[in-house]
């Protein structure tokens, strides 16, 4: 879209519209978006799609091959339908992959913006404190916290939020520091706007885009890590369907049914690629625009 025809419209509106236009021209954005919609929709509407229940097993039909009659993708070690478990598994995997990033996005943006806006000693203190978290390799930090707190979905989510919040704070803080000395902030302050309003209206609206794109690029990492925690036995507990946990419980079958036991990982892989492609397309659209 060229900007000649709409040059009299305020910049902020056209900026996002242009980004969206570039984004929608990207073929990989369409493909990955489509994959994600299918996975999300099937997870949400699982009870209406699946002909079996996620916990419904049969001792006589264990580890059936892919393509068995009645079980399109076979059955797992307890005779439960694989396709059903994979579709239901998306619920948990997406939940524990998404929630920490969402929480980290909200908490991290708040801390980063306030700290960057206030500046000075307080900012230095906050950022130095966060440097401590950077001294932990992220997998180690996640495993150590959820390992110490014990297995469970809530504990995994807390551990992963702790891992990803400092990274978002850093991005938000550097963006806020760049903007806080801009003239329009001074102008807003002179016009009598309170700090809260300046942060909410002027800072937030200007930095939320880049922070959001950064956060989307973390989703796939978070999802793989979350499923990894379940794979280790630290996250979701059986018999709940979850891709990482399913990989773990199917591990003894890799010698007899290799394809079947690798299936949950393929689901995880495809979802992760789709998230990365989508995030890349978004970032490219934004960098092409500016």
């Amino acid at each position: 879209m060229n900007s000649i025809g709409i040059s009299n419209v305020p910049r902020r509106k056209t900026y996002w519209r242009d980004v969206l236009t570039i984004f929608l021209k990207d073929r990989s954005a369409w493909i990955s978006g489509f994959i994600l919609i299918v996975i999300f929709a099937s997870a949400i509407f699982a009870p209406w799609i699946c002909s079996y229940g996620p916990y419904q097993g049969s001792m006589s039909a264990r580890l059936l091959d892919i393509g068995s009659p009645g079980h399109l993708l076979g059955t797992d070690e307890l005779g439960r339908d694989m396709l059903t478990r994979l579709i239901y598994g998306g619920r948990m995997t997406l939940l524990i992959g998404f929630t920490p990033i969402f929480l980290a996005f909200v908490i991290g943006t708040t801390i980063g913006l306030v700290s960057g806006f206030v500046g000075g000693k307080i900012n230095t203190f906050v950022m130095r404190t966060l440097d401590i978290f950077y001294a932990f390799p992220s997998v180690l930090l996640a495993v150590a916290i959820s390992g110490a707190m014990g297995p469970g979905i809530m504990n995994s989510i807390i551990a992963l939020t702790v891992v990803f919040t400092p990274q978002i704070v850093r991005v938000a803080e550097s963006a806020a520091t760049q903007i806080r000395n801009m003239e329009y902030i001074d102008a807003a302050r002179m016009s009598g706007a309170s700090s809260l309003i300046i942060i909410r209206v002027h800072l937030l609206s200007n930095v939320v885009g880049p922070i959001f794109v950064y956060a989307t690029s973390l989703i796939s990492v978070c999802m793989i890590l979350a499923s990894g925690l379940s794979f280790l036995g630290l996250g979701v507990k059986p018999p709940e369907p979850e891709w990482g946990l399913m990989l773990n419980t199917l591990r003894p079958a890799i010698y007899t049914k290799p394809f079947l036991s690798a299936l949950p990982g393929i689901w995880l892989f495809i979802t992760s690629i789709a998230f990365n492609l989508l995030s890349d397309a978004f970032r490219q659209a934004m960098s092409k625009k500016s």
Partner: protein
Amino acid sequence: MFLYVLKRILYSVPIILGVSILTFALVFMAPGDPISAIAPADAPEEVVQALKISYGLDRPVPVQYLLWLKKAVTGDLGVSIASGRPVLGEILTAFSHTLSIALIASFLGVGLGFFLGGVAGFYQNSWLDRIATFLSLIGISVPHYWLGLVLTIVFSVWLGWLPSMGAGPDSGAFYWDFEHIKFMLLPAITMAVIPTGIITRSVKSIVAEILAREFLVSLRARGLTDMTVLKHVIRNALPMVLAVVGLQIGYLMGGSILIETVFSWPGTGFLLNIAIFQRDFPLLQGIVLILCMFFVILNLVIDILQSILDPRIMRS
């Protein structure tokens, strides 16, 4: 130069202290009284009290921390609750095992990442670029523990070329002969996948950014060969690339738990897994502390190397 190094070392001290506080605090994240992690549930009251005193758990928490820190500084990380042996010895053995596969993985990751990233950056929008970019997307997207399982299926179960578990005969002593390297290959290859993807991406964007700089455009305009241009690109990219590589090696050491669990590789990750499920807190804290120290020192070394390669960093 000396001043910069000194400043950089001093700057690490509060970080190391912070790491030690966080590591110490892991015990308090556990549900229930820390003593319940040490004493059996049916232990009589006197035994619990005696244990509390011997572990210093009867003192206020800050005092406990300082006592723990004082010991840790001298290398005494306590005794493993599960095995009864000093924690440090166990960790150092495991550390050497993790380090050996991490080294192979780093060579693979750095070599492949440099090659793919360099090609993609140099020949942008060519089919070479597209292949390299696709490979790096796979590298950063693949769940590595799943890839470990797939490699096991292919190379151990089907082809029978490589062993799928353990570290080879007599894993106590360590040798770099084929009998042992055979066991390292699958874990190391699996481990290399993520850094390969990330290094490819970073090298590509760094190379592309440098190629767009004016001095290189002018070099090319003056008709210099690709080889000479390449030299300038490498000279300029090295400090930035070094930072990425250093970070990745640190992540390899700290993030090995999933891979080591898949391959039963007797490294720090495997030990960490044992420590978590046996609620062995001295071991857990010891591993976390040692791995973080390694990471902090690695970052320090990388920073100093970077400032030697690019003295501008020191001044800013």
